[in-house]
Each structure stands twice: as structure tokens, then as C-alpha cells.
């Protein structure tokens, strides 16, 4: 059992949870993730470890409700518990002082980019942050990102906050103004990461993307998370989750992530129906 110590809603449909998992908190490095199963009969899903507190034995997760499992997690409160949490998984982000780096996070991907940006900053890099959201109220981790960025750009699709447009618009400007960028890191929806990769490819700017394929065990035992990187087969859970964005076959991954679209919808609809009739947490 992995108790939820605290829970806050940080944007509509996005929560931040502090979960007790002492062994994981002790081992976790930036870039690691966990696989969680919130309830009996549930699904195992991957979530980035946003922060960890080895002293108190807790890890912080930020979760956006998109399907049934993430909806269940968003309904959890302090005192509830996950039945299974395993990790830390994946290869940590290689952190070096290279000079100037750009960290691009879109949507809940900001929760994935933040620990990387923080570690890159602590290693002495000059960090340019770019975060994007649909609108003002969906912007997350603004202060945290500001603290670890030398320069922070915020974009919203509707212009209700920061620059109107996509993260790629801000990135174009940043690349234009900074001639010494060494690396770009990006996480977010797959089409966004693909667009970032296309953009930086033109400038031959080294770019790492943290991928989010469908996963199950998270230990290299099923192959659900396989991706093509430079024509080679890679398992995201053990070889990644970060890969050279210019070598990733995004189209294939976008396609694979739609595999269960119909079932996921059915599952979520049934869950919402059940919540409505019971009017409470299910």
C-alpha cells in the first residue's frame, strides 16, 4: 500500500499528489518514472516522478485526467492509497553542464520537463524554459519553472496568458535570439514533440524527447512500449524514456498510441456513468 499524503488540484483536471514510497524516493533521479496501479482490477500506468523527498520518503506525481485510470487518480485524496507503485524506472536524464539548454514542455508534459530543467540548472547550465498550455488556467508549474529558468516563455493556444500560439512559436524566437544553444529537451503530446523535432532539425540542434508510449510492466518484459529510433527497435521503459528526437519515428508511435482508443473510451464512459449514478468516488 502506498498512501497519498497530500493532494492538490493545480489546474482543471490536473492534480499533484504526494505519495509515500520510501525506497523509490531514496533512489529516484531526474528523468525516472514509476508505474502505478491505483486500485484492484486497475491498469498499470506510467507517471513521471516530478520530485522526491528521501527524508520523508515521498514522491510527487502530477496527473492529468484523460482516461479511466487517470480519472481515478484525480479523485484520490490524502488518506487514500495506491495498491501498487513500482520504480524508479527508466534511465535517468544524463545531466551535464553544456552551456545553454532549452526545455520545452507542453500541457502535462511540463510536469515531465520540470525535474529535467531543475537538474540541468543545478548542474550549472543556462536554462531557457518554454511551457505551453491551452489557456491561462491550464498553465502548470509556472513558479517552479521560473525558479529554475534563466528565461521563461509561456504560451497559450488562445492567448489568455503569455504569448498566443504554440510552444514551437516561442522556440522559433528563442533559437533566433540565442546562437549558443547546445541542447533542446522536450516533452508533451506526441504531435508537439514531433513539431519541435522538425524545427530543431533544421538547425542541427541536438534534441532529446521524453516519449510516452503505452506501457504495462515498465521493466522490459512486454514490448508494448517499443519505438523505432534510427531504425532500431528500442523499449522506452528500459532504454528510454529519452531518445534523440531526430531519430524517433513519431508517426509510428502516434499510431501505436491509438491502439486502444475505442476500449479506452468505453472504459471511461462506463466509469463516468457509474460516478454520476453513485454521485461519489468510485
Amino acid at each position, binding site marked *: 500500500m502506498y498512501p497519498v499524503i497530500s493532494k492538490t488540484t493545480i489546474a482543471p483536471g490536473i492534480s499533484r499528489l504526494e505519495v509515500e514510497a520510501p525506497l523509490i524516493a531514496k533512489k529516484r533521479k531526474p528523468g525516472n518514472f514509476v508505474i502505478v496501479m491505483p486500485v484492484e482490477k486497475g491498469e498499470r500506468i506510467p507517471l513521471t516522478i516530478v520530485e522526491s523527498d528521501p527524508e520523508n520518503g515521498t514522491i510527487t506525481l502530477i496527473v492529468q485526467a484523460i482516461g479511466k485510470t487517470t480519472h481515478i487518480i484525480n479523485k484520490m485524496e490524502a488518506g487514500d492509497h495506491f495498491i501498487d507503485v513500482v520504480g524508479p524506472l527508466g534511465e535517468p536524464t544524463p545531466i551535464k553542464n553544456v552551456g545553454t539548454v532549452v526545455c520545452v514542455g507542453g500541457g502535462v508534459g511540463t510536469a515531465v520537463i520540470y525535474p529535467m530543467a531543475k537538474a540541468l540548472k543545478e548542474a550549472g547550465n543556462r536554462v531557457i524554459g518554454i511551457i505551453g498550455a491551452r489557456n491561462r488556467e491550464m498553465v502548470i508549474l509556472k513558479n517552479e519553472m521560473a525558479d529554475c529558468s534563466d528565461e521563461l516563455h509561456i504560451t497559450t493556444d488562445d492567448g489568455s496568458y503569455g504569448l498566443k500560439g504554440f510552444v514551437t512559436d516561442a522556440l522559433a524566437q528563442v533559437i533566433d535570439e540565442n546562437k549558443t544553444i547546445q541542447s533542446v529537451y522536450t516533452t508533451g503530446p506526441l504531435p508537439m514533440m514531433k513539431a519541435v523535432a522538425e524545427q530543431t532539425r533544421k538547425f542541427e540542434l541536438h534534441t532529446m524527447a521524453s516519449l510516452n508510449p503505452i506501457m*504495462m*510492466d515498465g521493466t522490459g*518484459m512486454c514490448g*508494448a512500449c517499443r519505438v523505432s529510433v534510427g531504425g532500431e527497435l528500442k523499449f522506452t521503459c528500459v532504454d528510454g524514456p529519452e531518445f534523440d528526437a531526430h531519430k524517433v519515428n513519431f508517426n509510428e508511435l502516434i*499510431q501505436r498510441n491509438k491502439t*486502444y482508443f475505442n476500449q479506452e473510451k468505453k472504459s471511461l464512459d462506463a466509469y463516468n456513468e457509474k460516478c454520476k449514478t453513485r454521485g461519489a468516488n468510485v
Partner: protein
Amino acid sequence: MSERKRARNNGKANERVIHLKPPERMKIPRQQPIEKEPDYRVCNFEEVSDGFDVNLASEEALRCLECKDPVCMKACPVNIDIRAFIRLIYKKDYDSAIKKIRESNYLPAICGRVCPQESLCENVCLVGKRNEPLAIGKLERFVADYELKNGNFSPPEIKENKGQKVAVVGAGPGGLTAAADLAIRGYEVTIYEALHEAGGVLKYGIPEFRLPKHIVDAEVDRVKALGVKIETNVIIGRTLTIDELFDEMDFEAVYIGTGAGSPRFMNIPGENLSGVYSASELLTRVNLMKAYKFPEYDTPLKIGNRVAVVGGGDVAMDAARTSARLGPEVVNLFYRRSREEMPARIEEIHHAEEEGIHFHLLTNPVEIFGDENGWVKAIKCQKMELGEPDEEGRRRPVPIDGEYITMDADTVVIAIGQSPNPIIQQTTPGLKTTDWGTIIVDEIGATSREGIFAGGDISRGGATVIEAVSDGKRASRSIDEYLTEKKAVLKT
């Protein structure tokens, strides 16, 4: 034991107990287990074989010749005293029969179901020279099930507490056996398991209809009844390292039984299309995550109308038969050699055929085609013929130039084998491995690092449950010797 005493004991063991004369025994036909009809069973996940009931078991036990020199016992990788337990079945003393088996094998309900007896004990059974061999596996399963049903399990006696701690990595059959054996020897044992449930392949690989999960849980509970702790959700190499187990947690020896779970792919075009699964993924979704009960369980699985399974081993048969139960119109199985070379158990090939799986032999997939949405739509295979035998004596498949077949498929399952999971090897300095990633062990199961032992699929590559059990027992003997010696040295 003195010579005289030994002779006397042997004399007793060799006294025939079963009342029939050997020729009469030889005439009794092999009893057939109660099995569900294929038409019924392909619609659900219920266990296919109900095994023997008391009558069938009693009748079958009569067929044992009670050989003076039981060759079956020698052929069993853990040397179960088969003759003794069959005599006990004959006497209807089922409690003693199961105790007898447990002395050598702590997982009888499992091994009775999934061991390839036809190539081990039953292969050498003398009854089989003239008639069909004794159904040893079915009898083992019968007494294990009898004990379960009647709830009269009592854990074996535990030796004095040795006060030394041993860690076991992986709760597959090998790890469970090593843990049980070490606990009986008086060690304090903790098993660390990466998944959220114990059982290894028994839980996530072998399907419910061959090995019901409540049976695995019951056997796991019996391991726990010996005082063994099982910590799930701990990946050694990630959550904790082997060196931490030694240096920070006071474990004095470690057994690695992490299996060979990493799926291999064919590296052919189209393998990453939607609708292409590794057998491991398909089976784990169904067995461990219960996708066949979606949406009651949250994990989905999508099986189309035309399933193509690639491979010829137990895993391929399980993948094909599992798919068949999820409602497709047809399940085609492609294997690059002929039926004689199929590594799957005969019983499973037979069950698969009964359940309507179409075998396409001497065909090897070379490409998978997708539709405009990136979903599988067909599989192209090259026809093969058998050439010269390879090192293992199996005839090598050779492609026939220019001969291809293409078949429609909307689901493809790749079941061509698994490799060892590399996490532990990568995070344990000094642990020697082969080029294939298996951990190297010597004849007592010791690895290149002091205090670390290994066995089962992680050292053999893909093998069998009973070999993992046998390795677990060997390692527990070696660990006992190692720790006893270590303690003695410390005292002096």
C-alpha cells in the same frame, strides 16, 4: 546407515504393495483425464483438463510396476520418489502421498499440470515399453488437488533458526522453490518480486485454462506459510541493488531467479504496426491483468478477426489458444520447420488443433503489411524446406526461392522466444554473463560473485518449470553449505 540396515530398508522398499501381478497391471489401459469438449472450452478460460478423480487415480495407480530400480525417479529433475507416492495413492493415503512429493518438489499442483512428463519420467516408464506409460503427471496433480480441496495442508517442520538472512530475487518457480527450501533449512528468507503479484511465468505467461491462477496463489501461500516474506513491486537493480542487499540490509546470500522475460522480435518490416503483439504482452494482458474480463478489469486488449501467431513452442500454443478464446474467426499459426521439430509439448499441440488453430508449417514470416491507419492487414511468409541438421540435431529450415504466401491478418502475435532481462546484470558489478545475457553459474549454482547464486531461465535461457525448481533446490543446498561454512569460519 549400516550396510545391513540399508539392505533391509531397500528390501522393504522393493516389496510389491499393489495386489495385481505385473502382467495384469500391464493390461490395464492408461486412464484418460476428464477434459472439457473443445467447442465448449474455446469460449471461456476454464481449465481444460479436470484431471483424475479418485476412481481414475486408483485405477491408474494399479498400472505401476513398482520397479526395483525406478528409472522414472532418475529421469525426474528433482528425483521425486514416484514409486512411493503411487503406492500411497494405491493405499488411498493421499495425505502421505502429497507429503512424499513435497519432500522433493514444493510446487506439485503446478508441476503436475505443466511439466513435460512425456519427455521425462513418463518417457522412461517401463509400462510404456508395451503399453502407454503410467500417467505420473496426472497422478501428481491428483494428490495435489486433493490436498487443496480438502484443505489439509500442514507445513513441513522447520529446522532450528539459523539466524542468517537470504534474499531471493524473482518469485517464479525457481525463486519460490529456493525460498521454501531455505526456509525449511532455518534461514530467514525474503523474496523480492518486480511485478505486483508473485508467480513469475506461472502468473503472467501460462494461461488460466492450463494453470488456474488460484492454484498458483495457493502454492505461493504455502511458501509464505514457511515464514517466507514476499515483497512485490521491488525491482532489484532499480528499487534496490544486490550490493545494497548485502551491505545495507544484512543479507548474507542472494539467489537470482529472474527468468527470461524479455520478448524477442523478428526485425521484419511492419513489426511495430498497431495490432502486433509480443506473446509476452498478449499473455500478460490476459493472465496477469485479466484483459479477458475487460471492462470489469481496466486493462484492454484488442484481438481482431484474423489472428496470426508466429512460433512453434509452448508460448506460441498458449498465445494461439488464448487468442482463440477472445472471439476471432480464425487463428493461423506459422512455424518455419515441420511438426516434428515443434518444441511445444505434444499435449498442447494436440489441444491447439482440437481448438481449431490452423497450422501453417514450413512457413516463415518476412513482412507485415498495414492499412492506411497503421493497423495490421496482412502477413507475408516465405515457404521453407528442411535442410541439414543443426548442432542440436534439429533440421535447419531453408527458404525456398521465390515461394511466398500472403494471408489476411488484423492481429499478429510474435512468439519466437524470450531473452533474459538485463537489469540485474547491468547493475551488479562482477557478475559474469554469456554473450546471450544469461548469468554464468557453476555446477553448484554459484555465480562469479561470492554469495550470489542463480538458476532457472536466467542461467539456462528459456527452459522449463521443473528445471527452475531443480536449480532452486540445488542453490538452496549450496547456500546452506556456504552459510554454514561462513558461520563456522566466523566463530573460529
